[in-house]
Structure formats: structure tokens, C-alpha cells
């Protein structure tokens, strides 16, 4: 943290917009629902493990949706699972974000044509903020997806818009 070491002595004040401050705080600690669906979940695990280290972005898996800010839909959503996913999403507190990881969650992936039990895209049941393409996306791709989401959070405003 270069600026904090050098430019400031004790007792200084920083002036910033509340929006910027809060957004900065929010985007640096996006807690994730610890939730994996299919093959993509293995890549998600690899992302949080030693090599790629999701933690440095402040992404920590939480066991409960009620304590989380983002949900990464990592894998194929089936019809049997879709209702549960909707419920999980509803259990999360606002503001909440969704990353759809992998072709399956984006649009059905390899199962788009004959998958009689596959939901063709998770956006049919919950709103999605960032789509990460790939089958499975590399961990780097997921990191980029997260950074895109952070960008989105950075530019949000806390002020309630009327309608």
C-alpha cells in the first residue's frame, strides 16, 4: 500500500465519496457461497486452492448463502436443481451478484440439444451479472470474470433510484 506508507502521517484525513468508499469495501470482500455443481466446480476449487488463490481478491467460500455476496453457478443446472438454485439465490442478502461459470450455466453447453433434464442457461431462473465462457473456463478466466464483477460494483451508486 504505497500511498498509505509514504504520503500520510498520523492524524490525516482522506476525503472520498461515500459511494467510492463503500464500493471499495464491498468489492474487496466478495464472499462466495461454497457451492459447486459439476465439472466447473473442480476448476472453481482449483481457483481457490494454492496456485490461483482466490483469497487475494477477498473471495472466501462461506457455507451458508445468508452470509454471502456472490454465488458462482459453476456447472450444469438441471431441472431438479433449478428450483433449489432459485431458493439459494433468494436466501442471499442484498446486494447480491451472480457469476455464471461455464457454457452449461450460460446456455446449456454440450447438453443444449438433447438434454431433456438440463436447464438451458441459469439466467432462465435467476439474473446473472457476469458470464464466464469456456468448458470448463480456466481459473484465469474465472479470475477475470471476478474482476469484471468488481468493476461493476465499483461503478454502482448507493443512492436509491426512483423507478
Amino acid at each position, binding site marked *: 500500500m504505497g500511498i498509505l506508507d509514504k504520503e500520510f502521517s498520523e492524524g490525516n484525513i482522506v476525503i472520498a465519496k461515500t459511494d467510492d468508499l463503500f464500493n471499495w469495501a464491498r468489492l474487496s470482500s466478495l464472499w462466495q457461497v461454497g457451492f459447486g455443481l459439476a465439472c466447473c466446480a473442480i476448476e472453481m476449487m482449483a481457483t481457490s486452492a494454492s496456485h490461483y488463490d482466490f483469497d487475494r481478491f477477498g473471495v472466501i467460500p462461506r457455507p451458508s448463502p445468508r452470509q454471502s455476496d456472490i454465488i458462482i453457478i459453476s456447472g450444469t443446472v438441471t*431441472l*431438479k436443481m*433449478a*428450483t433449489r438454485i432459485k431458493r439459494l439465490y433468494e436466501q442471499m442478502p442484498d446486494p447480491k451478484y451472480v457469476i455464471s461459470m461455464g457454457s452449461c450455466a450460460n*446456455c*446449456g453447453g454440450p447438453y*443444449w*440439444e438433447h438434454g*431433456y*433434464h438440463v*436447464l*438451458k442457461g441459469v439466467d*432462465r*431462473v435467476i439474473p446473472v451479472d457476469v458470464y464466464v465462457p469456456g468448458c470448463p473456463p480456466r481459473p484465469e478466466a474465472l479470475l477475470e470474470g471476478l474482476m469484471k464483477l468488481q468493476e461493476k460494483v465499483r461503478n454502482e451508486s448507493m443512492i436509491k433510484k426512483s423507478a
Partner: protein
Amino acid sequence: MKTSEEILNILKDKFGDSIIELKSDKPIDSFVLAAPLEVDKICMFLRDNSDLQFDSLMNLSGVDDANGEKVKDNKGTETINGGTLSVWYHLESTKLKHKFTLKVSTERAKPEVTSVTEIWKCADWHEREAYDMYGIIFLNHPDLRRILMPYDWEHGYPLRKDYRNPEFYQGMKVPY
């Protein structure tokens, strides 16, 4: 170690008519065709006979033979009438190291086979899967419910060759 022919002869002696025939004309695996409502007795014998000792059921699969008559209705959708569905049993003896394949065929209109869950516990889920995918009824099965599809799925048996996907399930659009 026994070959399929030897096993067939032992079975023929014991069961007579309910063993239909041995088919070995197709390449690779030969198999024995048996009567669907006798299969539990045959399997019990296969497991307990000291010359055979088939203590493990490797695989049980339902199959749609699609050998019925194909009918098109005026909308152009195809259904299959008549013909058979079949169930294949792949058995193995871990003690005597021999294998055996058994097949039963049953009417598509009223597919009924006796269950072998009493004999090999692992048949339980396999049979539930065959019921789920093909609608084959396993008589005496303790808990014949759907297993992979949702319990409230009402749109037929997906692996039958004439299955058609519904438009909606619980308000979700199913086709792409």
C-alpha cells in the same frame, strides 16, 4: 471357470422352459435369453449353486429394443407400438472368476420383470434407474420410485426411443 455353454446346460437341466436359448452368433459377448417372470428364481440359483457362485451383479441395464411398429399421427410425431423392452444382467463370480450375461425381454405395452434386489442388493438402484428411464416395472421391488428424474416428472420415460420432451416443467422452458 465355466463357459456360457456349460452354464446354459446346468440351467436347462434345472429350469427347462424358462431358459429360452443361448445366442452367440453376434460378435464378442454371448448371452442367454430367459423368461421375465422367472428371472429372480434363475438368479437365486445362479448365486447359490456351488458350481456357479455368481456373487456379484456387475451391471443391470434396461434397453429399448425399438422393434415395434412405428406409427405416425397426423402431427408427424412418431410413437412405437408393440415390440419389446429388455433387461440385461451382467454377472460375475469373484470366487470362480467367470462371467455370464442374461437377457430378458418383456412386452412394451406391459413391461414387467421380477426384481432381483433380494439376491444382489446393488440391483436396487439399477432397477430404479431402469424404471425411471424405460418404465419397466420390477415386481417385488421394495421401493420403486423415480431416481434420477424429479419425483413429480409426468412426461414419460426419457430413454425410450419415442420419448418427446415437454415444453415446460414447473414453469421452466425445457427446449433450447
